[in-house]
């Protein structure tokens, strides 16, 4: 039976945590602001868990897990949530694979039914595996139409020599062409076990009743073990790296990556503040943050690159991850601006902040921005549930609630230290997309 492990006040209401006997962690939060409920099912498996030859398998498995299960024939997949006006989706990234439904609250048991089926009994029909292969290759090629995506892929592969964060989540083309149905099914069966998952329910629901429904739907799924996870640590980078893509196009792009701390490390928070000073605060919600532009007009890199006309846009990307990932600054060169000049201006600002740190006014502004962002990015049950599950998967869910306090306590000294340590030229990787016909 389920045991209540912990309860913690979080924001406006209480998060209840339970652990089923089979190891499934369940987080439930009642939010009664709209007649809606959301479910997110999270698995601790992403592209970092993939060996050579099988890159992209986690994402492909995600696709297959929408292709029918023992009790939901393939042709019945659609309609279950739609009849409640609901939205469903899933995504895969470096640390995680996750599935979500948001619909009117009376759909809750249907959502739990779908997720229990997904965890226990997906079909992996060989013909569907083949059909999904071409869909995913189409997804990859659609991404490759975008020079920015291409450059990001190359930059990450250059910044990481050993860690599996180096390959793109969608996988390398040759792996997508050769992977077999058994590869997919084996990956699914290994990682889709209750002890490797977190189920999050948020919305206009009764927590006790929801927990009973969870017990009914998931209690019977056998426990299992993922087994040993081999994971190479990235050795320290000892010198600046550079990659230049030369392909026909109209526009030049610059990216600069530095190795970043993991989401649970103390240094993550001063780096978050530092990024707000350089490019404007994004917040920490991978699902919502990119939908709203950051407040960045007065940010240092915006002033140095965009206001001067060197770039048409600049952005920073610092995301909480399970293991140390990269902090990436991206800029698009304006027509006629040589990449050398853009790089020079960007590096000058990065070196300056590494040398001199930030001002007290900038610290105050960055904290205000991040505080506002944390409010804005938790404006729906879907977003709240995403954040609980996201942090439960890459660290601990309590870290989500601790976020604002940890940001508030960041000092000038800490920002200065993280700038010096993390933005050093030796841990830097610079990427150019330089249009070949330029």
């Amino acid at each position, binding site marked *: 039976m389920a045991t209540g492990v912990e309860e913690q006040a979080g924001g406006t209401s209480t998060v209840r945590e339970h652990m089923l006997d089979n190891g499934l962690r369940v987080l439930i939060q009642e939010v009664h*602001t*709209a*007649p*809606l409920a959301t479910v997110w099912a999270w698995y601790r498996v992403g592209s970092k868990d993939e060996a050579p030859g099988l890159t992209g398998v986690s994402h492909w498995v995600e696709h297959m897990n929408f292709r029918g299960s023992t009790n939901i024939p393939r042709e019945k997949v*659609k*309609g279950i949530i*739609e*009849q*409640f*006006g*609901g*939205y469903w989706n899933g995504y895969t990234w470096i640390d995680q694979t996750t599935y979500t439904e*948001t*619909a*009117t609250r009376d759909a809750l048991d249907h959502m739990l039914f779908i997720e229990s089926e997904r965890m226990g009994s997906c079909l992996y029909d060989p013909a569907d595996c*083949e*059909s*999904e*292969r*071409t*869909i*995913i290759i*189409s*997804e*990859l*090629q*659609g991404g*490759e*139409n*975008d020079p920015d995506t291409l450059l990001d892929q190359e930059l990450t592969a250059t910044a990481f020599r050993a860690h599996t964060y180096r390959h793109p989540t969608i996988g390398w083309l040759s792996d997508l062409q050769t992977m077999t149905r058994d590869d997919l099914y084996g990956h699914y069966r290994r990682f889709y076990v209750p002890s490797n998952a977190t189920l999050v329910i948020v919305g206009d629901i009764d927590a006790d009743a929801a927990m009973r429904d969870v017990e009914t739907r998931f209690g019977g799924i056998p426990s299992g073990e993922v087994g040993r996870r081999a994971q190479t640590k990235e050795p320290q980078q000892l010198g600046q790296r550079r990659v230049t893509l030369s392909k*026909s*196009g*109209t526009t030049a792009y610059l990216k600069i990556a530095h190795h970043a701390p993991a989401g649970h490390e103390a240094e993550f928070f001063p780096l978050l503040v530092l990024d707000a000073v350089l490019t*404007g*605060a994004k917040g920490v919600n991978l699902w919502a943050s990119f939908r*709203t*532009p950051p*407040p*960045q*007009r*007065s*940010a240092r890199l915006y002033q140095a690159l*965009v*206001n001067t*006309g060197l770039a*048409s846009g600049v952005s920073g990307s610092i995301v909480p991850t399970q293991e140390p990932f990269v902090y990436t600054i991206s800029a*698009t*060169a*304006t*027509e*006629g601006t040589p990449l050398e000049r853009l790089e020079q201006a960007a590096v000058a600002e990065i070196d300056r902040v590494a040398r001199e740190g930030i001002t007290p006014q900038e610290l105050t*502004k960055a904290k*205000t*921005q*991040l*505080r*506002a962002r944390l*409010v*804005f990015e938790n*404006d729906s049950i879907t977003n709240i549930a995403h954040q609980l599950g996201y942090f439960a998967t890459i660290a601990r869910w309590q870290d989500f609630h601790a976020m604002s306090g940890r940001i508030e306590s960041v000092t000038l000294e800490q920002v200065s230290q993280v700038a010096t340590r993390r933005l050093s030229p030796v841990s830097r990787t610079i990427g150019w997309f330089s249009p070949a016909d330029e």
Partner: protein
Amino acid sequence: MTVVHTTGARGLAPSREVLANGLTVICKRTTVTPAVTINASIRAGAVFDPPGLSGVAHFVSKTIDRGTTTRSADQIAEELDNRGVPLAAAVTRQVLSLTCTCLVEDFEAVLEQLADIIRQPVFPDAEVDSRRREVTTLIRQDEDNPAAVAVDGLMETLYGYEHPYGRRLRGTVETVERIDSAVLRAFHQAHVSPGALSLAIVGDVVPQRAVEACSAAFLSWPASPAPAIDIEVPAPPGGRRTRVIPMMNKAQTDIAYGFTAITRNDPAYYAYWLMNHIMGQYSMGGRLGDSIRERQGMAYYVYSSLDANVAPGPLMVRAGVSAANVERAVASIDAELTSLVTDGPTEQELVESKQYLIGSLPRTLETNAGIAAFLQTAEFFGLGLDYDVRVPGLLQAVTRDEVHEAARRAVDPSKATVVVAGPYDGSLS
């Protein structure tokens, strides 16, 4: 001055007030987060670009917040950033909009600043010159993006290169070169006025407070007439038109396939809405998704969209496929559309789409930004303050025959316009 509260027993029941100078304020109080979304919608979209000078409205959206008679661009940036408020300026064919979300305690101050930006921008030469480089880069990026090239190509072919719907919203490198501070000021002078502006304010402020703040910030702005525009839509083509735009440096081909459709105020709108949903939206892309993605595994995305607007916007099918599958994908679109025209929707499809669209309303209206966008659409098309309550009935009333008739009226593959952009240089029929 009185604030009129709509006292609907159900639904959003927003309040709406027209100030003495013609500015409309729509408010809805919510208490989910200590934040307020301000959505300013101005009837000054790209359809008002002067003939031969496409891209002016878009350029205005890029420069309107770059300095006013009382604040420099840096001051505006500093004030907004200090409060953590990103101001998003965007332009569509019809509307120029400025949207932001702020904490409740900053509401009056942010609204005052927004009023300054909307009322008295100065478009300084230096800012205009550096934003021109940004706009030119955006245009050049579009030219390298098969999806943008295919859609632009379809709009040009459907409406004509100089038509308000056919010309490019961002303009061309050549037109943008000719847009200067004087052009931007003239556009602002002609099209940004109290009567053209509606403000939707959604968040933890009571309507009285919102209206008072709007009055303080906007009431001294004198009324001036907001020009209207008649948009004629070309007659449908006599036959099928295809256009191939080879972009051999790309990995995937984009298809844009469409027709001119209807206006938003056409009585058949709800039948069209359901028809489009069944054709290319429901679940993973309706019938088109079932065929092209789910059964044939040809595309990661395939869907249709309907832009019923002031003038008849397009009904458009979009798909991204490998170059080897272009002909097969277009043939599949033809087949699915033909079947919908011939047989109409099934009763089950109609029920499912109605259930979905009606059931999705609470989700659409969950966040402040979602509510504000919904209220602005209702205001723009004059749908009424109780539109959210009426939508379910309007959709429920649509019959299968009406959807079938909408398909017959809107869709004819033999007269479709088909544009393909990407690593494909074959000849389509």
